[in-house]
């Protein structure tokens, strides 16, 4: 695929984020072409979550921009044009959180149809049909009328993925979506993500699952101290990390 010719689906350009005196991102640039799966790894506190939150438009950048298909959707002092673009593409960016954040007062089905109904104005029948298809896809058809509290963590996270997919996003952001889960529940979530990648979803995945990054990632970015230290195809990165920091980080995962 000729990535150079097409505008990336989503791109960060010189992204800086400070919280008062705390300097979290110090100039991060990345670009995801269609079908890209970029896995971001790195030590705790390196700014991975903050990067994702900026891309999800939950944090405003201190400097730099976020673009979607070339159009600026986030910048430090957004003008009216950026605001309009932001509102227009907001729902094209799906995000899945470490702690699911399902709404506890709604059933699984209600969680999934809420945004399509309110934001896209879908009819109830349409939204329910789409939700049922998504539930089948994540293997939870029998849980449609259950409240989230009654589900295991792995099931809740799969519902959260279905909820994000219900808006037909152009790109999906995943923030350590298996970290809060017991090891035996991680597989079912990772399986759904693998399937999504295979179907050609564009994905930005922050993860500690090295096997996933190795097998599913089209590229891997290693973050440390608020910058991307190293980026490349997983094969190269995992076999011959160029920087010493990446080598030291990867050494932790060898047993």
């Amino acid at each position, binding site marked *: 695929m000729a990535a150079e010719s097409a505008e990336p689906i989503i791109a960060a350009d010189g992204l800086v984020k400070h919280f008062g005196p705390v300097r979290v991102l110090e100039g991060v640039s990345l670009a995801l072409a269609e079908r890209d799966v970029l896995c971001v790894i790195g030590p705790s506190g390196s700014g991975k979550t903050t990067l994702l939150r900026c891309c999800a438009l939950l944090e405003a950048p201190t400097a730099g921009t976020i673009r979607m298909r070339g159009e600026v959707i986030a910048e430090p002092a957004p003008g009216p044009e950026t605001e309009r673009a932001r509102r227009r593409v907001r729902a094209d960016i799906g995000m899945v959180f470490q702690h699911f*954040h399902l709404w506890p007062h709604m059933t699984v089905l209600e969680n999934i149809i*809420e945004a399509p109904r309110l934001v896209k104005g879908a009819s109830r029948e349409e939204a329910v049909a789409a939700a049922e298809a998504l539930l089948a896809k994540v293997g939870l058809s029998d849980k449609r009328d259950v409240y989230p509290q009654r589900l295991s963590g792995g099931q809740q996270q799969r519902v959260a993925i279905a909820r994000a997919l219900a*808006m037909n996003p152009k790109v999906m952001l995943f923030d350590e979506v298996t970290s809060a889960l017991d090891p035996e529940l991680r597989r079912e979530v990772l399986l759904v993500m693998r399937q999504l990648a295979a179907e050609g979803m564009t994905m930005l995945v922050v993860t500690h699952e090295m096997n996933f990054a190795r097998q599913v990632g089209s590229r891997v970015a290693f973050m440390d101290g608020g910058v991307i230290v190293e980026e490349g195809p997983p094969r190269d990165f995992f076999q011959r990390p160029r920087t010493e920091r990446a080598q030291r980080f990867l050494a932790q995962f060898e047993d």
Partner: protein
Amino acid sequence: MFTYQFRWDVVPNNLHFIFSGMQMTLILSATTLAIAMVLGLVIAVLSMARPWPLRAFGVGFGELIRNTPVLVQLLWVYYVLPIFFEFRIDAVTAVIIGLSIYSSSFIAEAYRAGIQAVPQGHREAAQVLGLNQAQTFRRIVLPQAIRVTLPPLAANFVQLIKYSSLGAVLSVGEVTRKGMELSSSTFRPLEIFTFIAVLYFFICWPLSMSIRAWETRLARR
């Protein structure tokens, strides 16, 4: 030593009179609760507003009311407010206004706690899915906040039933005032005030117990 001769018959003989007072008590409390629920929401929203003058007003008003005695507030509304606004208000209106203001400052806290109890992540999930602020508040925050807020609201109703007895000071004919009037005409304060205390208890106690059961049930969810 204790040679007091009980004369409980003053109670059944004046039951109608006492119950009319109880009716007034409940009407006062319910009216006040209704007003305080609206006023409390206004104060809660102000105290969480982004512009600082609104926030300062909301927070300051709440602090002022919660840290002054309710009786002083009632007297202030009844005697001082008419001087400012140059119109007389009757005692019932004064009690309703005074207690509403008092109660709203506590109810505002309950609302605020309820709203803040909704995890930020729930809001962010809605935001990422494209819901705007109003939709997020109405569909995600409010339904969750209300659950947490209902028991404190009910507890406030119990408070109001008790505090409405302060209306007696302004000669409002609620049940405590009726008791005062009866005891001075019959010279039977012991029987009358005992009966009235028991009456309050058997209204407030079941309410309090149900609220506690309700809270336990909510906590288990």
